[in-house]
């Protein structure tokens, strides 16, 4: 998906219901300030997943932004819970993971949890804008199967839902990214979150 041109795109979050879940107060402030610049007015902040679960049961959100790294082991489980146990419309809310440390084990965990995108920190307003636009524009179907609930990880003619054996040789993501021990760049993360066919 191509990035939106900020000089030609209209962008205003004043009507969006947003939930930020982040265990780091400064990280929460940074994201809040970015969203304030984007005119967001309905922002709910939670510093723990238990509190976030209560909010999810209580009100509807269009966008959930969280940093699982600051939330202990419950961070990714929260997304899993949101996708599997909560009800519509929150179950289908756009979920953006913003994380400071992008090692492959965590990115694959994020992908498997059902998040829409992973954004590497440090955050910049342009990067956050870009990701929000991606999520607003995306038309991926929502997939529910035994081992995965969330947006279809196949972009155009890409891979298969998690746990489903591909019938075609080319139905695979780049496994080298999942086993890599180097720190992943944003483009690496995108490749994992948005698997596409590879030339054989």
């Amino acid at each position, binding site marked *: 998906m191509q990035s*939106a041109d*900020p*000089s030609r*795109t*209209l*962008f*205003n*979050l*004043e*009507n*969006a219901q947003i939930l930020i879940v982040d265990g*780091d107060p*400064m*990280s929460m*402030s*940074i994201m809040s*300030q*970015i*969203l*304030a*610049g*984007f*005119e967001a007015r309905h922002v709910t902040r939670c510093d723990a997943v238990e509190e976030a679960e209560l909010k999810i049961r209580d009100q*509807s959100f*269009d966008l959930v932004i969280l940093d699982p*790294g*600051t939330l202990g082991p419950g961070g990714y489980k929260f997304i899993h819970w949101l996708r599997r146990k909560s009800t*519509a*419309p929150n179950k*289908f*809310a*756009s979920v953006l993971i913003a994380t*400071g*440390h992008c*090692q492959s084990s965590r990115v694959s965990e994020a992908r498997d949890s059902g998040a829409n995108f992973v954004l590497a*920190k*440090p*955050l910049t*307003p*342009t990067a956050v*804008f870009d990701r929000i*636009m991606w*999520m*607003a*524009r*995306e*038309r991926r*179907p*929502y*997939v*529910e*199967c*035994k*081992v995965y609930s969330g947006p*279809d990880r196949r972009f155009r003619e890409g891979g298969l*839902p998690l*746990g*489903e054996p591909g019938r075609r040789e080319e139905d695979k993501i780049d496994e080298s990214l999942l086993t890599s*021990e180097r*720190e992943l760049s944003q483009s690496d993360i995108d490749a994992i979150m948005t698997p596409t066919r590879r030339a054989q």
Partner: protein
Amino acid sequence: MSAIKYSKPPNRLDAALSSARPLLAQRAIERATQNLAHLGDECAAYVDQLIGSLRELFDLYVVDRRADALADMYQLSLRFIGAASLAGCADLEVAAKSLCDVIDGMLERGETEPEPIRVHIEAMRMLRHPAALGGAGTELLAGLQRVRVRFAMSSDATSPDAKTSDTLVID
């Protein structure tokens, strides 16, 4: 083969954006950037506080080398990322990411060697004031990178020749 259910729920984020007053994204990004600039001093104080907490935790860790203290230091290291660059010390942020990698690798392999953590913390303390370092910041980061390669990625990082002292010495 397990059953797969596909659905096409409405994109509520798109609907929220579409129903809002028209505002050029470029203007929104400028405003967000201005907002972040106002956080600089707060971030600087936060980074100082984090360095203090990290050093305290490390002092405790050296004594008992508990895995949960290691995990706590990982959590603290994560918090630098974002705050440090807004505080004007982007290199410190690079060092913090490196420390995350090192601790993550150590946790994964069950290692307890404190030296790679010590050199990172000391480097981060110096990188907090980049102007005072002059060009030495780049050398510091290069040294940390060598430590990172050994302790975050090498499975034989605990071997006797994998000590950090021959890689980077910080007094």
